[in-house]
């Protein structure tokens, strides 16, 4: 090798603190790589941006007239809808976590990373963290489009920021579920289909588009307890005003619960992946 500086790998024991620093750095490097991927795939970027905008516009104008009458008095459908659409878009996007992971697995990139002396969770953290950054970006964009058609955060900037945090945290938790799907299911298309099978019922049997009180008994109970509904209700309360703490606590409980189950599951699956 021509360069003396890098001729030999640093070896030997390092302090725990140092090792932690290295792990954080590894996660940042892999996150940066995944973020670059979004930018390098303009088509993906364009369509994954257009899709939520399209949902906002379609649902607001197609269903708006019919549904407004079953909403509480004085609530405009666009104000009701947007918090739901934030969550719906985040849920659909989380299936991309599985797809991205499967593609990396198939291309051997993950094999190379696994054969290198880097932090074990870097691949998973790098993937979910990049998806989180993307979620922030897309959610802000959707809010901006919402503003153009009359949506407003009506409880002030702090609650608005909290609402967006809930969206992003919810998306992050789902990303870990779909990381597990990606590590378990074979093939990107299978991962995508598995994602939709899981996500679709959750999205529609929820308070995203309509109040759950309009649903038949059975379904109403399912919908009311669903993590999607409680998160949407929390965001709605934060943006429209109203009772915040109950749905917010339920939503956070779901988010923490999902992470507590799926992060260890993913790590276990990743380690066992031989």
């Amino acid at each position, binding site marked *: 090798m021509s360069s003396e500086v890098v001729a030999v790998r640093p070896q030997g024991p390092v302090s725990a603190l140092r090792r932690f620093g*290295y792990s954080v750095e590894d996660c940042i490097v892999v996150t940066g790589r995944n973020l670059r991927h979004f930018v390098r795939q303009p088509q993906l970027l364009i369509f994954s941006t257009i899709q939520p905008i399209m949902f906002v516009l379609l649902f607001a104008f197609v269903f708006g007239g019919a549904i407004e009458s079953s909403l509480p008095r004085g609530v405009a459908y666009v104000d009701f809808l947007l918090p739901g659409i934030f969550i719906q878009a985040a849920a659909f996007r989380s299936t991309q976590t599985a797809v991205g992971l499967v593609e990396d697995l198939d291309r051997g990139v993950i094999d190379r990373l696994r054969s290198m002396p880097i932090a074990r969770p870097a691949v998973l953290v790098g993937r979910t963290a990049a998806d989180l950054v993307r979620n922030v970006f897309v959610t802000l964009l959707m809010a901006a489009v919402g503003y153009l058609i009359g949506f407003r955060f009506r409880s002030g900037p702090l609650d608005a920021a909290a609402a967006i945090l809930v969206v992003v945290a919810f998306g992050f938790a789902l990303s870990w579920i779909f990381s597990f799907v990606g590590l378990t299911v074979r093939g990107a298309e299978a991962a995508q289909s598995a994602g939709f099978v899981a996500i679709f019922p959750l999205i529609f049997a929820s308070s995203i588009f309509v109040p759950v009180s309009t649903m038949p008994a059975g379904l109403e109970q399912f919908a009311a307890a669903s993590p999607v509904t409680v998160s949407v209700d929390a965001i709605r309360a934060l943006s429209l005003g109203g009772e915040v703490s109950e749905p917010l606590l339920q939503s956070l409980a779901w988010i923490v619960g999902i992470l507590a189950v799926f992060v260890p599951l993913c790590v276990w699956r990743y380690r066992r992946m031989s």
Partner: protein
Amino acid sequence: MSTAALTQALVRRFGDAEALGGVDLEVAEGSVVGLLGPNGAGKTTLVRVLATLLRPDEGRAEVFGRDVVTQASAVRELIGLTGQFAAVDELLSGRENLRMFGRLFRLSRRQSARRASELLERFGLADAGDRQVKTYSGGMRRRLDLASSLITRPRVLFLDEPTTGLDPRSRNEIWSIARELVGEGMTLLLTTQYLEEADQLADRIAVIDHGRVIAEGTGDELKDNVGGSMVEIRLEQPAERERAREVLLTLGCGEPKTADRPDELTLAAARDGVGMVAAAARALEEADLSVRDLSLRRPTLDDVFLELTGTTRGVDGEYSSEPEAPAEAPAEARR
């Protein structure tokens, strides 16, 4: 010299299929060992076990005395892996790939950038360095993949079929890089299905088939095991081959073998090769058979392979092996 890589009675199964059926292999530090075998012989599985990507079901595998299962992170500090499929990031440029791996190998930003430039230069990718890898040819990807394994110097490098699917020119480029690395004292474990590649690059060759090492030695040792030289006769008229065979039979040196080509015959020359050539030439001339070419040749690794595995080599240089060998599907291997 210490042992760079060692496997003992290594077994790995995928479902019912046994990919490795008890492999013993030793790679001395500073040497180049070629693992030669047809598709599905277990080569990739063995490399994946040594690279900590796959746990063995039975037996042991070590890299510089560190166990690949219990001391996996220590092993990863020591190895470099260039796989069968170039594991480079298509959406990043060549330079970005190398810088990313540099950062992951604990180089600073500046060191990573400098190292990336050095490697791009050395591997003939300087001009393409800032282009996305998806625009690269197969040979360029493979070189970038190899460069990624060499960001910091591994003590042993695993090259898994480094030239499979490459055109001859790209193959030569990879070979010359491999030779340079060997010249610098790098330990290499190279898997290949090309006999020539093993012959060209490896000090020792282990022939692997159906998950077992069926022969081991230097290229010359393996060739000697097959037997002595052979006289190869090529006739002007393929139609005369049968008559030529009868003539050669009278020499009393055993049964002449008919080869794949319709105009070719071979005759084993266990002892006096030159005398045999003369005798065959004389006999054929007396029988009025016109000969296009008559030569004495040492057995090639092809012959070794044929003898050992009963596998034949097709026109395209690939082996047509019996389908019973478990397929080495990487998609399966990682699950």
